[in-house]
């Protein structure tokens, strides 16, 4: 049981627990906190996978910006305990069981399937972090156009948010 395994299992458990808490919590703010927990744990896992930059971005953008936005909105709307109505029969009788089934199916397949094994072998020998420089070069050369496209997308999103949130007198 070496250090990476310990760390992996610690953070994996944290993530899963966070996800479960997200589901069971009745207070939106608790859900948000648990989601932040998941995200931080994932960031740590990214570090384990040697993706430092992504880990940082994950925390800065996801945990630091998006989730802050969520918390912000929750505070703004002062969202209280969620009421659990069950008007959608299909969600109750089909959605949930199938969701659980999906979970186990995916997990089982990924654990057992040949691809999973092959990739597991593929992981051997890869060590050391990805250099941020290489990543940035790929981002700004190979994926330059998508990058610009996303910038446009964000601009549009900002405008949309403005238009939506503006109270029309």
């Amino acid at each position, binding site marked *: 049981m070496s250090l990476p395994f310990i760390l992996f299992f610690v953070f994996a458990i944290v993530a899963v627990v966070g996800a479960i808490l997200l589901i069971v919590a009745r207070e939106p703010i608790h859900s948000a906190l648990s989601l932040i927990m998941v995200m931080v744990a994932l960031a740590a896992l990214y570090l384990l996978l040697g993706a430092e930059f992504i880990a940082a971005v994950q925390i800065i953008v996801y945990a630091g910006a998006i989730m802050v936005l969520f*918390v912000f909105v929750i*505070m703004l709307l002062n969202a209280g305990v969620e009421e659990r109505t069950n008007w959608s029969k299909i969600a109750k009788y089909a959605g949930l069981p199938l969701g659980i089934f999906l979970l186990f199916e995916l997990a089982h397949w990924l654990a057992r399937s040949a691809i999973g094994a092959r990739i597991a072998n593929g992981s051997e020998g890869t060590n050391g972090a990805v250099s*941020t420089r290489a990543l940035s070069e790929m981002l700004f050369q190979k994926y330059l156009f998508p990058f610009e496209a996303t910038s446009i997308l964000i601009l549009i999103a900002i405008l949309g948010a403005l238009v939506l949130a503006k109270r029309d007198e």
Partner: protein
Amino acid sequence: MEFIAQHPVLVASLVKIAILMAVLMTILAYLSWFERKIIAHIQSRWGPYYVGAHGLLQPLADGIKFLFKEDLTPPASDKFVYTLAPFLALTLAITTLALIPFGPATVWIFGHETHLVVANVDIGLLFLFAITSLGVYGVALAGWSSNSKYSLLGGLRSSAQMISYEVSLTLSVVGVLLLAGTFNFNELVTSQQGYYLHFIPRWRIVPQFIGFLCYFTSAIAETNRAPFDLPEGEQELVGGFHTEYSSFKFAMFFMAEYANMVTVSCLATILFLGGWLSPFPDRWTAMQYLPAASLLALAVYLAYDTFAQMRGIARIQLAVVTALAAVLGLLCLLPAVMPVIQGPFWFTFKMGLLLFFYVWTRSTLPRLRYDQLMSFGWKLLLPVSLLNLVVTALWIVFPQLVNHG
């Protein structure tokens, strides 16, 4: 046991963390004293004076007071989050300091090599930003959980403020990153070695002066300090997000604030002021004695003070301090210590300077109105830092364009 043997890194880190925490806590404690003293003198008062000589024991007294006060929890509050918030704030604030290198990458202490940093991460700066960006939660959650209008508004305000100023903070730093081409603190510092015209140090503040201004301004806002300390604007909303907090939880917010100040100043030192680098060229070897000299000078002054001014118990306390200063000064003269002490000395010196600026602005400038704050952040600071970034980028790219068509 053998697990530890496998991982000596852990041990080293633990030791460093212990030292850092000890030093940091005292610094945080005495930062309040420092601040109160300076403000007092700026307003031509004495400031804390009676608890110990020159009020040197004031922080201790405050700490004890905080500890023994009753810890109130509003009944309507969300207990879990309410308790979580201050811890979050303080932990995050302190964690960042683990990334700050206080001295050269490798120094030799008593024959074996160490780094004067807890964690030398390859992309340290990004991590620092990552952690500081989480700092918002402390405030926001505190504001929300204590379930009171003042707190909520304060929390909302401060989180909004922090988010909006984080943008310009990051942007103003990017200019430096472009010039240095790395996220690693050590490289960031070492890339600032050398001198213009043989005596002006090659610090990033010279080419990035605008960036520095933007950085420092948004840093003040980021740490919710005057003149941007709206969240605890007493006039409109009592104590802001920590209105409902009392005793030690309140103290934690306090310490978190100071820790943030320290972090930000450290960052500014590293990015713009050449970190631990000495402002003087190495050939001026005499300057190596500067730390010792300054400490000894302090000791001398204190000694004079002790015997000229002090009476009774205060005289004894001050004598102890004098002795401490003298011992430290002499310690710095040891050939084993002298090279090691250079980096930290200059680092703390610059950091202290910046902290002094902090206090200075606080005691000088009036508080902004909220809309002023926001428009200042979005309409002035952000564009300026963006412009700075663009100009820097062009400055870097232009030669390439010229050369390679």
